[in-house]
């Protein structure tokens, strides 16, 4: 293999699994260390720069970081990254005077953001601090989008949304609320320098089976029903409820139903339990609240008596996989299952919908009805119009919407300066030695052997009484410290300087997870088979040095490195060093002013 190109920021970035997995590339270990040090405000600001909504995401993020966490590969469970983020938001001091402000003189460029959800608000924040005049249009009373309308308050209190939306509006962003945009053509005709579309995926998919129309008054589309609950239009539900669907919306529906009077609440899913789209922790929360989940059942008909829903019948299926590994749900031939109920919530997916975008204004749509976009710049075929969030590349999650908001803001900034939007600014990268003494490091290199700590919860009998009572209490500072200490500090990189190495094997001998091998070079497959410990996780890189004095190479399997620094402590010549890698993604610089 060729020597690893560690000068390319991607190499060390990839080692920081959580940051690499985060769509917004939040420097996770950096803020976790700040939390451990009790510097909650600083930890909040590290988050705020990257993901804009730390308090919100600390409660409801889809947390792609956690499945990626290295700790999960060597311990039973990953670090509770998401809930540590909440700790930063919960315990921070007043940080308002530390937030950036818009320059006194704006740059004369006017930007319209359509939709007031996380993507639009991110665009607004990034551009406002750079001197742009940003106007956000939203049809609701206040901004927040689906964070406000779809996520139940027992998971995300209103006050948290208000606080973090407010930080953005205070930057001088204009909010046109209760404003329905019904023609993009009209907006284009106005004198906006650029237009950002962040209108989400507003249409819930419906269950098209017999009885749907007749029993319509007892059957609701999940996201619409959740919005009605959020805005106080719906205050109760019948005792027996069936939720169709296995995603996170289905979990929100069933748990909300449980709090609005649902006594017998069931979730019925086509797929098996493991393949359900809902995050494992959301399924766990639903089960914890006494909700049954039934799998491998496909809805066949809504049974009713003259329009009054009485039951749903289901066909039993099993999963079969073809040669290409594609799943087919095949009827088992067993008798149908009939479940009695009074109301049904349909949460089987969300779709995009752009009835308000005219098809003759230069914006091309693909055969699925999605706008044709450049995946990086998020620019549409009408150069002045950019997309982000669920409305751009299909429904994902909040953190993806934020990441796309940052990207779109950069594109808009470049576009407004007349620059090539494809030439993206590079991230800011620092790599600094953490050595302070022979065995002193400026990070806590002792590896905690504690198991993941559970977030304290309110007793269920209290939590289920009221829709607005937050179930989770969050970590207290002591638990937060203990959980923060579980972080392996993957951003403190093991940097190898081959010319210093005397090949004494000290690092090989000390490494607790047997990551390091000195051997003859070879092709990757061959090398992986010859390392001191088996190297089967091919998603994780091998760190290969240049040829050493004996013509061998140093090969480090990044997979389960604990970043304990023992290799560097044991190295007599400083060939290993522990260096903190900090990558901050590029954001709008404001050079247009």
């Amino acid at each position, binding site marked *: 293999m060729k020597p690893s190109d560690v000068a390319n920021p991607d190499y060390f970035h990839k080692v920081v699994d959580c940051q690499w997995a985060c769509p917004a590339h939040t420097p996770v270990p950096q803020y976790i260390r700040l939390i451990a040090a009790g510097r909650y405000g600083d930890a909040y600001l590290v988050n705020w720069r990257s993901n804009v909504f730390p308090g919100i995401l600390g409660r409801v993020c889809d947390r792609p970081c956690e499945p990626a966490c290295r700790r999960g*590969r*060597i*311990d039973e469970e990953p670090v509770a990254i998401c809930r540590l983020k909440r700790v930063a938001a919960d315990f921070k001091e007043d940080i308002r005077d530390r937030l950036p402000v818009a320059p006194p003189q704006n740059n004369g460029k006017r930007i319209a953001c359509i939709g007031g959800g996380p993507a639009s608000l991110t665009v607004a924040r990034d551009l406002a601090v750079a001197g742009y005049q940003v106007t956000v249009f939203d049809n609701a009373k206040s901004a927040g989008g689906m964070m406000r309308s779809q996520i139940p308050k027992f998971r995300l209190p209103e006050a948290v949304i208000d606080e973090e939306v407010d930080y953005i509006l205070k930057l001088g962003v204009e909010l046109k609320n209760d404003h329905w945009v019904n023609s993009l053509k009209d907006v284009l005709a106005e004198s906006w320098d650029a237009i950002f579309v962040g209108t989400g995926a507003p249409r819930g998919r419906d269950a098209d089976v017999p009885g749907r129309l007749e029993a319509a008054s007892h059957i609701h589309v999940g996201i619409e029903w959740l919005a009605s609950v959020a805005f106080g239009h719906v205050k109760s539900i019948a005792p027996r409820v069936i939720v169709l669907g296995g995603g996170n919306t289905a979990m929100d529906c069933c748990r909300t139903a449980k709090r609005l009077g649902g006594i017998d609440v069931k979730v019925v899913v086509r797929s098996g339990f493991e393949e359900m789209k809902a995050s494992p922790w959301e399924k766990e929360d639903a089960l914890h609240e006494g909700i049954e989940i039934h799998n491998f059942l496909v809805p066949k008909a809504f049974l009713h008596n003259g329009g009054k829903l009485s039951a749903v019948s289901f066909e039993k299926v099993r999963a079969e996989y073809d040669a290409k590994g594609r799943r087919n749900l095949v009827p088992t031939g067993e008798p149908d299952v009939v479940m009695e109920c009074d109301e049904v919530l349909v949460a089987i997916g969300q779709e995009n919908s752009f009835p308000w975008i005219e098809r003759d204004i230069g914006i091309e749509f693909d055969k699925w009805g999605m706008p044709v976009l450049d995946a990086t710049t998020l620019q549409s075929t009408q150069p002045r119009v950019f997309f982000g969030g669920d409305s751009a590349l299909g429904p994902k999650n909040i953190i993806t919407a934020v990441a796309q908001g940052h990207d779109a803001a950069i594109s808009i900034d470049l576009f407004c300066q007349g620059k090539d939007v494809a030439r993206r600014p590079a991230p800011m990268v620092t790599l600094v030695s953490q050595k302070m003494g*022979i*065995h002193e490091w400026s990070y806590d*290199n*002792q*590896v905690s*052997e504690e198991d993941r700590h559970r977030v304290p919860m309110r007793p269920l009998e209290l939590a289920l009484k009221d829709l607005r009572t937050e179930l989770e209490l969050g970590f207290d500072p002591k638990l937060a410290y203990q959980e923060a200490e579980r972080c392996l500090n993957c951003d403190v990189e093991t940097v190898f300087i081959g010319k210093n190495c*005397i*090949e*004494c*094997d*000290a690092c*090989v*001998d*000390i490494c*607790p*997870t*047997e990551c390091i091998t000195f051997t003859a070079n070879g092709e990757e497959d061959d090398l992986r088979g010859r390392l001191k*410990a*088996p190297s*089967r996780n091919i998603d994780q890189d091998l760190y290969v040095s240049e040829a050493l*004095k*004996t013509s061998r190479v140093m090969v480090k399997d990044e*997979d*389960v490195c*604990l970043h*304990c620094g*023992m290799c560097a*402590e*044991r*190295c*007599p*010549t400083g060939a290993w060093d522990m260096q903190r890698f900090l990558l901050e993604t590029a954001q709008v610089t404001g050079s247009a002013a």
Partner: protein
Amino acid sequence: MTYLAKPKLLRPDTPVNALGYTRRDYEGAISTLCAGCGHDSISAAVVQACFDLDIQPHRVAKLSGIGCSSKTPDYFLGASHGFNSVHGRMPSVLTGAALANRDLIYLGISGDGDSASIGIGQFAHVMRRGVNMTYIVENNGVYGLTKGQFSATADKGSKSKRGVENTDSPVDLVALALQLGATYVARSFSGDKAQLVPLIKGALLHRGAAFIDVISPCVTFNNHAGSTKSYDYVREHNEVLNRLDVLMPRQAITADYPPGSVSEIRQHDGSTLRLRKLAEDYEPNDRVGAMSHLQAHAERGEIVTGLLYVDPQASDLHEHLNTVAQPLNTLGADRLCPGSAALDKLNAALR
């Protein structure tokens, strides 16, 4: 030097041996030697060898004297018996222990000071007697604990860290062991575990006095230009005789080497030492040949490593003394000491 103990977290696919132990189970306390010390590599090689051989840690007794090398038994086999003896007196303590309990595996760890200076007399006699043991000398040519004076194994003409030349002739412990009757004699290098681990395994399985001299660079006092025991010097002057594979009795023997290049030696316990020859015409069953080969290369400043000599049918001290098969420490006082009546009877027979 590290304050912190190794984290207990294990990689999920950590290999276990036939006893269900991981390599980590054969480790000891965290080393307090200098970073990069060759001795730590030897400790790691001992760990690997015991892991590979599925040795039960409580069946091993590790004994040592004084010095950097003699500290190392604290850093491996933490669950084994240990005895840190007086300087240079490990061989007699080991001999006593081996006589009392012939069932344990004896591992003597010593250094060039402990064995070639203060303890050279003890070294000579333990080899002569053929005590069933593995005797490892971690040989760095200097007194590391007292700031790097030349030891008795330092080569004549080699230079100290401050540039002073050694004028004394060296003691070659391998030559001594060969001459004194050790029945498994090897030399290796701490920087070459591929060679060292099998040599330790072979020694642990050997019945009789097994001696391994391991050149182990002292990074602090003897790893400079002018040293003949530095990493660089040893790598440049290493004359490897053979590569050893140790095959356990239960392992199927599959030959995948060109004929003539491999010789196989069966030991008492049924294990097989498979040697891949690297030096032409070298036979490791010729004691006199080994001695002259060694001398000839030493004259040229070369360091001969590998398995120099083995007598697979060797006998040990217990055989020489015709002791009972049962360990003496389990016999009980009545059988070990028949009493004054028996003594009187014996004395009467001699009058």
